[in-house]
């Protein structure tokens, strides 16, 4: 897997922030989608395969970051997508709320490029391992079922009297 295999969505009402964050990520080869408001962000998530969301909390009008997160976590199709909150004011209350709502991490603004990239990288890795694990579990369950089935059939062909 390379960075260009991952689609990242960045949501921030401040266009300059969008540019800065997305430039950092594009430099690393990630694919990006941008949105300046909540409703459009949800639309993008529903219409595209998004692997990770960077979500600003404070957004005027409409849905703020928390609201977007709530909506995405309610939908079974989108609830597994990891969300990293971008917090302008480093208020511990916001951070706690973010985690309670299912956010996996937060990046206080203004951020350092290296910190942003490291946190994104970590979440991508976790997602990769999660996906890998899920595939593995599914595969093992299937093969277990096959074996049980095979044993069952075998047991019927053996005559217990002999």
């Amino acid at each position: 897997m390379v960075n260009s295999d991952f689609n990242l969505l960045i949501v921030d009402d401040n266009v300059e922030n969008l540019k800065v964050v997305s430039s950092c990520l594009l430099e690393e080869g990630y694919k990006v989608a941008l949105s300046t408001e909540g409703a459009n962000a949800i639309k993008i998530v529903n219409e595209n395969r998004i692997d990770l969301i960077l979500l600003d909390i404070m957004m005027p009008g409409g849905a703020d970051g928390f609201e977007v997160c709530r909506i995405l976590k309610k939908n079974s199709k989108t609830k597994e997508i990891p969300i990293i909150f971008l917090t302008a004011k480093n208020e511990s209350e916001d951070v706690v709320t973010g985690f309670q709502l299912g956010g996996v991490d937060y990046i206080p603004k203004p951020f350092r490029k290296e910190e942003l990239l490291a946190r994104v990288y970590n979440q991508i890795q976790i997602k990769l391992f999660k996906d890998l694990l899920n595939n593995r579990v599914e595969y093992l369950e299937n093969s277990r079922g096959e074996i049980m089935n095979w044993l069952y059939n075998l047991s019927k062909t053996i005559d217990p009297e002999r």
Partner: protein
Amino acid sequence: VEETPYLPASLELDEIRIRQVIFNLVGNAVKFTNKGYIQVRTEFDYKFESVGRLTIKVKDTGIGIPHEMLGSIFEAFRQLPNDSNHTASGTGLGLAITKKIVEKMNGTISVNSTPGKGSEFTVTIPDIVTNKVKSKINTTEENYKDIRFKDTVLLVVDDVLPNIEVIAELVSEAGVSILSAENGEIALDILNHNIPNIIFLDLRMPGMSGYELAKIIKTKPEFNNIPLIAYTAFAFEGKRNENSKLFHDFLYKPVSSNALFSLLKRYLKVSNSMSQRKRNTLYTEIDFEDAVTKQHFKEIRTILIEDFLPQWASIKDSLVLFKMEEFALRLKKMSESYNFKYLQNYSGKLLIEIKMVDIEAIQEHIECFPGIIELLTKKIDKKYSSYGK
């Protein structure tokens, strides 16, 4: 840089050689100086009315040269004894070559140095003829100050960082963004995500050479139209013919702004409006001088309406850059297959704006798209009616 007030406006000198001398000395000074300054001074002493002696002094506050080395530094392959703490490196030929050049001009070169405090190199060239005419170079250089290129991305591949910095410095005001790579692998990686308008390749690099890199780039159809420029030391000019098929042009080190800009002007679009971008008027007319036949225009219109318009409608309202990029790339490929410059240009610009995350420009450009189809239709109709007469 300090000039004596008496320096004549113009001297009759071998421009390339004297530049090489100064470049070597200043380059050395930069290499061995971690803090402080590097000073370049020129003096001119008249012997007769129009003949005199030129002195160039390059002084640095670097690590200096040990006394026992002073006598031999102009010999080939003499460098500071292994000093693992220091980052300086080089071929060991710089000063030897510099000395040879100076001597060929009947000049002398000498050095004063205090270890730990710095060094001063002095080059003296006698019997130089002065020229009253203001040099041609100076006036053209002034003109280059005003040149702006349109949304241009330049990729420079060179293992020696200062060679890249020189270019970056020269084009910094000209609307050119620089991508840089220190070796072929990094360059190819950059090319995976970026389509520059022009590429400069150093020929001699550790690992993949500029030739090998150029060959690889040539095999990729999406880079077919990008001019490849060999960025090479003047000394290797003899090889020019051998490689002329691989490269569009040559740029010699040490590079002058003159050579650089006249080369860029040959391959890039010069922007007329220096500061204001006239985006909206950009799409009001389609240049039908393109090498596209009437029949092909109709085909293109059909493809645009049936294939591209639905995709456009699905991407236009959201800034899903990876989809926009896909759209622009597909459009670029299609227009290239018809050699339709106008659309090539449009999609190429869009791709750069996406790379640069120029959100306003992306939105404006994307909005233009149906307008292009409309204009195309109008032009086709017009052509048909005039042919009908």
